[in-house]
C-alpha cells in the first residue's frame, strides 16, 4: 500500500529499547557500583528525542499529502490470528495521532531532560529512566496503535508504568499505597474498556478490528449497542483520565517524583482517555446521549476538582486537582462533539501543565522537598526564572488571553454553548473563575509576600540549566500554542481543527458573532475577577487559614476517599478475610491439597518402574507391542 511507512513502528521502539537497555544496566549494577548518571541521562533522553524527530517526520509527511487521505500505516507483524480474525501489531498515523505524537514526544523529551537535573543523586537513577522510557514507549503505542487491541497494549503499559513510578520511592508505605490505588482504580476502568472492546468486536468487528475498518462499519452499529459500547469505553476513559467517580487516584499519584507527575498529567496517561474518546468519535457521533453523559460527567468533575483545588495546601495537590478539572473540560469538549476543541485543549494543557509541574518541581527541589505552600513565600526574588515561567503557566491555566489556555478553553465553552448545552457552558464559566482563583492563590502564596520559612528561603535558588531550559521552552509553548488554533473572530482560521478534521467525525455549529464575543467577554471578566480576589487575599502574605465548615469539607475532598473506603474497600476486605480464614482451608483448599498429595504419590509410585535394567525397558516395549498387536489383530478381521 502506498501509505505504508516502515519507520512508524520505530517511534515507540526507541523509548522501549531505551527502557530495556537502561533496565538491564540498572539490574546488572544494582549490587555493585552503578554506571555514571551522565551515561544514564544521555541514554534515557536519546530515545524520546529520536522519537520526537521521527514524529516530526511523520507530521510533515502527512502534511504533504492530500487532506482527505492523510494516513500512514505500518503493520509490523501479525500478532495472532484466531480463525478469521487477524490482529496485527499495526501502527496508524493520521492527523489526530500525529498531533498527539508530536507533543507527547516533545514534552516527554523535555521532561526527560529536566529529570536529569531533578533526579540527580538518587540511587535508583537508572531505574527511574528505564521506567520513564517504558512509560513513554507505552504511551506511543497507545497513540499509534492501529486498532483497539494495540491501543489496549499501550493502555496497560501506561497503567503499569504509572504504578511503578508512583510507588517509585517504595521505601515509604504511603507511596506504595498510592501506587496500589492508582493501579486498582485503573483496573476498574480497564475492565470497562475491555468490555467495551468486546462488545464492539461482537457487533462490528468481524471484518477487521482496526480503526479504519471499524470506522467504515460504524453505521452498522445499532443505537442500543452503540450506547453500551460508548458508556463502557467511557468507564475506561474515566479510570485513566481521572473522572468522577474514578478520579481519586490522581491526587494521590503525587507521591511519585515530580517529573513523573508532570509526565502523567501533561503528556501521557491522563490524556489517553480523551484521546480514546476522540479516536472513537465515529461511534460517539452516532450516540448523542452518550456524548451528553460524557460532557456532564466531565463538567461536574471540573467543578468538583476546582472546588477541592481551592483549599489544598500541597503545591502538587493543587496542580493535581487542576489537572482533574482541566480533564473535565476536555471531556466536556469531546462530549459535546467538539472533538477538535477537546484535543486542542489536551494539546495546550500539555504545555502549561508540564510547565507548572516542572516549575513546582524546581521549587520543591530548591526547598529540599518542601511541598506545603504555607511554608513558602517570597520566592520571586530568589528564583526569578522559575517565577516568570510559572507565571506564564498560571496565566495559561487560568485561561487569560492571549495565553494558550484561553483559546482552547474558550473553544470548548463556546462549543458547549453553541450546541445548546447551556448548563454545561454556565458551569464551565464558573469553573474558569475558580480555576483562576486557585491558580493565582498558588502563585501569590509561593512567590509573593514574605518568606515564611526563613531558613529554607535562604538556601533557595534557581535550579541548574538542565532544569530551567526545559521550563523556558515550555513557557514559550504555553505562551504561543494557542495561536495555532486562532478562532475566526481573531482573524485566525482554526488550523488545528482543520488539521484534525479528517480523523474525527464532528460538525461545527454556527452562532452569531455577537453571542460568541459576549460569551468570551463574560469568561474573561470572571477570570479576571478570580485573579483579583486571589490577589487581594494572598498577595501581601496571608497566613495559613484554619478551615471550618464547607472549606474543611472541601479540604478533605468531601470525604470521598473515606466513603469509598467504607462502602467498597472494607466490606470487600471483610468478605475476603472470611473466605481466607474459614472457607478456603476447609472447603476449597482441601481438594487442592488432597489432589496434590495424590499427584505426588502417583509420581513417586511411577518411579518404581524406572528400575534401571535395560532388559526391563525392553520388556516394557514388548508388552506395549504385544498389547497393540492384540488390538490390531482384532481389528484385522
Amino acid at each position, binding site marked *: 500500500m502506498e501509505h505504508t511507512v516502515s519507520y512508524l513502528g520505530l517511534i515507540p521502539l526507541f523509548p522501549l529499547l531505551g527502557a530495556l537497555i537502561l533496565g538491564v544496566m540498572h539490574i546488572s549494577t544494582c549490587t555493585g557500583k552503578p554506571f555514571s548518571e551522565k551515561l544514564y541521562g544521555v541514554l534515557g533522553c536519546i530515545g524520546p528525542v529520536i522519537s520526537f524527530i521521527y514524529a516530526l517526520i511523520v507530521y510533515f509527511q502527512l502534511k504533504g499529502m492530500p487532506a482527505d487521505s492523510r494516513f500512514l500505516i505500518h503493520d509490523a507483524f501479525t500478532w495472532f490470528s484466531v480463525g478469521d480474525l487477524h490482529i496485527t501489531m499495526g501502527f496508524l498515523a493520521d492527523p489526530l495521532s500525529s498531533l498527539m505524537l508530536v507533543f507527547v514526544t516533545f514534552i516527554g523529551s523535555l521532561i526527560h531532560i529536566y529529570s536529569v537535573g531533578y533526579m540527580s543523586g538518587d540511587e535508583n537513577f537508572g531505574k527511574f529512566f528505564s521506567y520513564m522510557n517504558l512509560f513513554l514507549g507505552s504511551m506511543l503505542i497507545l497513540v499509534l496503535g492501529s486498532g483497539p487491541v494495540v491501543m489496549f497494549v499501550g493502555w496497560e503499559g501506561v497503567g503499569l508504568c504509572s504504578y511503578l513510578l508512583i510507588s517509585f520511592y517504595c521505601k515509604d508505605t504511603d507511596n506504595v499505597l498510592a501506587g496500589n490505588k492508582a493501579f486498582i482504580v485503573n483496573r476498574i476502568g480497564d475492565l470497562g474498556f475491555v468490555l467495551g472492546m468486546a462488545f464492539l468486536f461482537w457487533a462490528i468487528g468481524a471484518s477487521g478490528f482496526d480503526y479504519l475498518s471499524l470506522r467504515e462499519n460504524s453505521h452498522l452499529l445499532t443505537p442500543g449497542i452503540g450506547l453500551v459500547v460508548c458508556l463502557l469505553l467511557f468507564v475506561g476513559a474515566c479510570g485513566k483520565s481521572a473522572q468522577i467517580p474514578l478520579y481519586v487516584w490522581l491526587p494521590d499519584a503525587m507521591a511519585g517524583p515530580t517529573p513523573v507527575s508532570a509526565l502523567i498529567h501533561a503528556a501521557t496517561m491522563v490524556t489517553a482517555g480523551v484521546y480514546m474518546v476522540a479516536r472513537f468519535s465515529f461511534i460517539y457521533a452516532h450516540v448523542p446521549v452518550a456524548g451528553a453523559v460524557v460532557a456532564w460527567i466531565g463538567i461536574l468533575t471540573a467543578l468538583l476538582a476546582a472546588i477541592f483545588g481551592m483549599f489544598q495546601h500541597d503545591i502538587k495537590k493543587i496542580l493535581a486537582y487542576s489537572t482533574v478539572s482541566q480533564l473535565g473540560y476536555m471531556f466536556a469538549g469531546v462530549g459535546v462533539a467538539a472533538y477538535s476543541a477537546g484535543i486542542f485543549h489536551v494539546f495546550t494543557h500539555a504545555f502549561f501543565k508540564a510547565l507548572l509541574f516542572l516549575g513546582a518541581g524546581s521549587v520543591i527541589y530548591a526547598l529540599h522537598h518542601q511541598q506545603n505552600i504555607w511554608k513558602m513565600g517570597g520566592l520571586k526574588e530568589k528564583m526569578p526564572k522559575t517565577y516568570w515561567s510559572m507565571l506564564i503557566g498560571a496565566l495559561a491555566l487560568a485561561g487569560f488571553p492571549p495565553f494558550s489556555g484561553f483559546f482552547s478553553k474558550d473553544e470548548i465553552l463556546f462549543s458547549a454553548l453553541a450546541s445548546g448545552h447551556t448548563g454545561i457552558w454556565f458551569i464551565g464559566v464558573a469553573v474558569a473563575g475558580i480555576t483562576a482563583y486557585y491558580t493565582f492563590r498558588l502563585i501569590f502564596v509561593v512567590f509573593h509576600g514574605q518568606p515564611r520559612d526563613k531558613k529554607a528561603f535562604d538556601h533557595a535558588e534557581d535550579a541548574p540549566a538542565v532544569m530551567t531550559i526545559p521550563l523556558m521552552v515550555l513557557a514559550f509553548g504555553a505562551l504561543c500554542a494557542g495561536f495555532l488554533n486562532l478562532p475566526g473572530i481573531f482573524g485566525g482560521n482554526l488550523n488545528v481543527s482543520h488539521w484534525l478534521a479528517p480523523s474525527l467525525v464532528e460538525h461545527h455549529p454556527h452562532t452569531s458573532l455577537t453571542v460568541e464575543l459576549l460569551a468570551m467577554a463574560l469568561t474573561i471578566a470572571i477570570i479576571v475577577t478570580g485573579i483579583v480576589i486571589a490577589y487581594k487575599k494572598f498577595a501581601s502574605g496571608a497566613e495559613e487559614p484554619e478551615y471550618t465548615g464547607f472549606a474543611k469539607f472541601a479540604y478533605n475532598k468531601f470525604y470521598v476517599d473515606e466513603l469509598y473506603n467504607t462502602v467498597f474497600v472494607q466490606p470487600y476486605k471483610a468478605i475476603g478475610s472470611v473466605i481466607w480464614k474459614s472457607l478456603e482451608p476447609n472447603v476449597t483448599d482441601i481438594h487442592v491439597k488432597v489432589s496434590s498429595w495424590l499427584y505426588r504419590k502417583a509420581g513417586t509410585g511411577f518411579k518404581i518402574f524406572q528400575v534401571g535394567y535395560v532388559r526391563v525397558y525392553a*520388556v516394557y516395549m*514388548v*508388552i506395549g*507391542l*504385544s*498389547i497393540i*498387536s*492384540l488390538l*490390531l*489383530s482384532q481389528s*484385522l478381521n
Partner: protein
Amino acid sequence: MFAEWLFAAFSILAVLGGIGLVTFRHPMNSAMSLVVTMISLAGLYALLSAKLIFAIQLIVYAGAIMSLIIFIIMFLNVRTEDLPEEKGRFLYLFGGVVVLAPVFFFLKKIIQSIPATKATILGDGFGGIKEVGLVLFKDWLLPFEIVSILLLVALVGAVVLAGKRRMSK
C-alpha cells in the same frame, strides 16, 4: 520336491540355531549357533534364487561379522565365572514366550493374508551379481552412497569408544 526337503532342513536348522542362541549360557556357544542359523539362511536365500545375497550372506555375515564377534569373545577371554548366573533364564524365556504370543499371532495372521501363489520359474538372470548391481547403481544409488557415511560413522565411533585416545590438553 527336492527343494521342499531342502527348505525343511534349512528352516529346522535355522530355528534350532536361534533357540540355541537364546538358551546357551556361554556366548561362544550362542555365537556358534548363530553361525549355524546364518548358514542355513544362506541356503534359504539360494532356494529363493538370490545368488548374490547367498554369497554375501556366507562371506560377509557368516564369515566376517561372526568371526569378528567370536574374535571379541576370545579377546575378552570370557570365563564362565564372569558370566551372569541367569539361573532363571528359562523362566524368563517362558514369560517372554507368553508375552510375545500376540505379536507372533499378529504377524502370522498378516502373513497368511498373502495369496498363495505357485512359484513361477524365473529367468536366468534373477539375483545374479550383474543384475543386482545394475539395480543397485541405477535405482538405489542414494542409499548406497549414504551407507558409506554410515560405515564411516561406525569406524569413527569404534575408534572413539574403544581405541586409544590422545588426550588434548
